[in-house]
């Protein structure tokens, strides 16, 4: 069996080795990031059968849990790492031709470290380790957003940095308070002691964690950085930022709230916040002229929906949320990647300038169409089972509060359909220019692969739904988590 530590070490070693290879040739770094993400995906595939019964617990350094750091490989973590490595691999193929300005090997180095940070956040079982890997994720995204060095990128980068680092400071204060109250840094250890400590400092600490991780997760009042950052970054980076970075921030929030604190009474508040975020995102997207800003606001909306799904508090709801994370990663990634070359060929980011692209770039526009349909939730595509499970589990809780929220979610979907319809109308309008000027092959391959996966999982959702139900049952089982780790003593 492959040791799961390699999931973190392989991209890290690739990143450390890139400057050495850079002395030979600048272009080797592209293949290093391709190979690293491919190897990660293969390892994830080989570990899936092993975690079905019990999560794998890896002790770093050989020291038992509260006294050493441990990694917890559960079905939920493997799901996230699978999404990360798949999306990372496809985006690296796209970046072979797309990134050709600036210092190329530094881009791939930053990208590999971004993947390392994201993997580390979902695999770890220790609060301070979570913070360190979360910082790796955030700092690499600050540098990647400003990678193009143009006016927009640097302004978006500094705004993101200032807000993100205030969030990190809050997380550190929360960790300090938790350590002062409970005396340990291991998530399972704190979870087992937390009910015996009652002090107002616990709620202060929970609030600080929510704010700190919530800035990265783009929950309502804390998402001012997102439209600028996701629209001014290079398109590959927008795809991964919307694809999994904000979802990982949301994972961190939920892990702290549900597993460490066990605070199920704030879930109603989180559900309301989620739907409010959804409405704000969709309404703001409606007025946009710039295609990447429109997609960025749509990401805010979808994160609100995922937060709502997770705060339903039932395994069915969590499974729906996970399904929606998969569908959002694939669809939004596809949309950003397709938009990358569409912007390049049209010369501008404005929707008005994109008339006629449907005939000039047929394959890209068709895949863009598939992406839009799947994001909105139409039947044969992957977005449909996700939204269906969420709405079904919300209705089955039989609480009027959730019925109202579901109504608001449906309203948000209607607004989403209307602005995407306007966008599609612009792209597919005929202007008489028939010259086909398609995107290069290295860009078409990942777009087509993503469209095929969207179609395949949409038609047969059973491929993933059994695994997702397993992952969600594992996530909701707090006492099982504690016993698994501390019982290994």
């Amino acid at each position, binding site marked *: 069996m492959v*040791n799961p*530590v390699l999931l973190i*070490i392989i991209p*890290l*070693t690739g*990143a*450390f*080795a*890139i*400057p*050495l290879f*850079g*002395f030979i040739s600048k272009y080797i770094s592209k293949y290093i990031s391709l190979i690293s993400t491919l190897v990660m995906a293969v390892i994830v595939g080989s570990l899936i059968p092993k975690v079905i019964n019990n999560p794998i617990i*890896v*002790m*770093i*350094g*050989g*020291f038992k849990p*509260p*006294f*050493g*750091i441990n990694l917890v490989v559960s079905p939920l973590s493997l799901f996230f790492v699978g999404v990360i490595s798949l999306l990372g691999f496809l985006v690296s193929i796209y970046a072979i031709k797309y990134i050709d300005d*600036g*210092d190329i090997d*530094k*881009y791939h*180095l*930053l990208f590999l*470290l971004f993947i*390392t940070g994201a993997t580390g956040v979902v695999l770890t079982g220790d609060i*301070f*380790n979570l913070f*360190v*890997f979360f*910082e*790796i994720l955030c*700092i*690499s995204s*600050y*540098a*990647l957003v*400003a*990678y193009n*060095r143009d006016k927009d990128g*640097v302004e978006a*980068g500094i705004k993101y940095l200032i807000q993100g680092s205030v969030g990190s400071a809050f997380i550190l204060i929360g960790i300090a*308070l938790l*350590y*002062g*109250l*409970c*005396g*340990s*840094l291991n998530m399972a*250890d704190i979870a087992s002691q937390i009910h015996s400590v009652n*002090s*107002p*400092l616990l709620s*202060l600490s929970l609030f600080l964690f929510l704010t700190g991780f919530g800035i990265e997760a783009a929950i309502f009042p804390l998402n001012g950085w997102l439209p600028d950052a996701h629209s001014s970054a290079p398109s590959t980076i927008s795809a991964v930022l919307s694809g999994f970075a904000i979802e990982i921030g949301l994972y961190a929030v939920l892990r702290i709230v549900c597993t460490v604190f066990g605070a199920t009474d704030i879930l109603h508040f989180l559900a309301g916040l989620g739907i409010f975020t959804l409405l704000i995102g969709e309404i703001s997207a409606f007025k946009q002229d710039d295609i990447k800003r429109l997609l960025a606001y749509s990401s805010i909306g979808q994160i609100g929906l995922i937060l709502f799904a997770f705060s339903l508090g039932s395994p069915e709801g969590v499974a729906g949320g996970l399904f929606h994370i998969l569908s959002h990663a694939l669809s939004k990634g596809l949309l950003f990647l397709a938009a990358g070359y569409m912007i390049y060929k049209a010369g501008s980011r404005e929707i008005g300038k994109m008339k006629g692209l449907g005939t000039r770039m047929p394959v890209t526009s068709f895949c863009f169409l598939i992406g839009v349909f799947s994001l909105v939730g139409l039947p044969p595509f992957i977005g449909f089972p996700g939204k269906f499970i969420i709405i079904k589990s919300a209705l089955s809780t039989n609480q009027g509060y959730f019925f109202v929220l579901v109504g608001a979610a449906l309203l948000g979907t209607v607004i989403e359909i209307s602005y995407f319809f306007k966008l599609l109308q612009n792209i597919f309008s005929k202007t008489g220019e028939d010259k086909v000027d398609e995107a290069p092959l290295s860009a078409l391959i990942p777009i087509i692969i993503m469209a095929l996966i969207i179609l395949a999982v949409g038609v047969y959702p059973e491929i993933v739904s059994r695994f997702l139900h397993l992952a969600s049952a594992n996530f909701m089982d707090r006492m099982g988590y504690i016993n698994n780790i501390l019982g290994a003593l």
Partner: protein
Amino acid sequence: MRKVISFILIVIIAVGAFSSLREIPFGATKSRVREYYLDNGIKQTGATNIVTSVVVNYRGFDTLGEVTVLFLASIGLSAVLYRKKEERRKKRRESSLILYTGCRFLFPLILLFGSYIFIHGHLTPGGGFQGGAIIASGFLLTMLGCWGWEGINRNRFKITESLSGLAFVVVGLLGLLYGGYFLFNYLPKGIPNQLFSAGIIPLVYIAIGFKVGSEIAGIINDMVRSG
């Protein structure tokens, strides 16, 4: 107007925080892990400086992450400051003979002091990060005082960074091979309080010392040359 609202907000947070901070008594700890580390630290790791054994051995994964963060900052910096053509800096006047000689005299002494701190990390207070910062301050002194000297080649910093980072990861992977756990302490622990003791800890700290020193010196070099 913004000042007034911010001030009121800060006062509210202050009152709320101070009134609840009485809960944690200052000067008495409730930590379960503290006794374990203090009692078993020397036996399990061989280092007499318990903070070092916590940083490198018990929580070595955090240290790997931290080294990565600094590497990220250095790379992100040079990616954002990249310019297509190296523009010629304006020729500054050379520094005076006393300043130049003084800096050249102090520079190796500072490097020696920094190296002493990270080599003895497991015996005395200090360690890789502190020693690396001192080495970088030596480079800063030469950049500030010895104008007229072109400075160290940027490529040498890059090679040192990558090799030391790889050395840290390789030490951990060898632990995986020999002991079955990443970062397992597989070298002989020796007698406490001697220089050659504590297993992999001196190796890791030497790698970190070189890495941090060359990284921070590289960051300062980039910032000085860019503007």
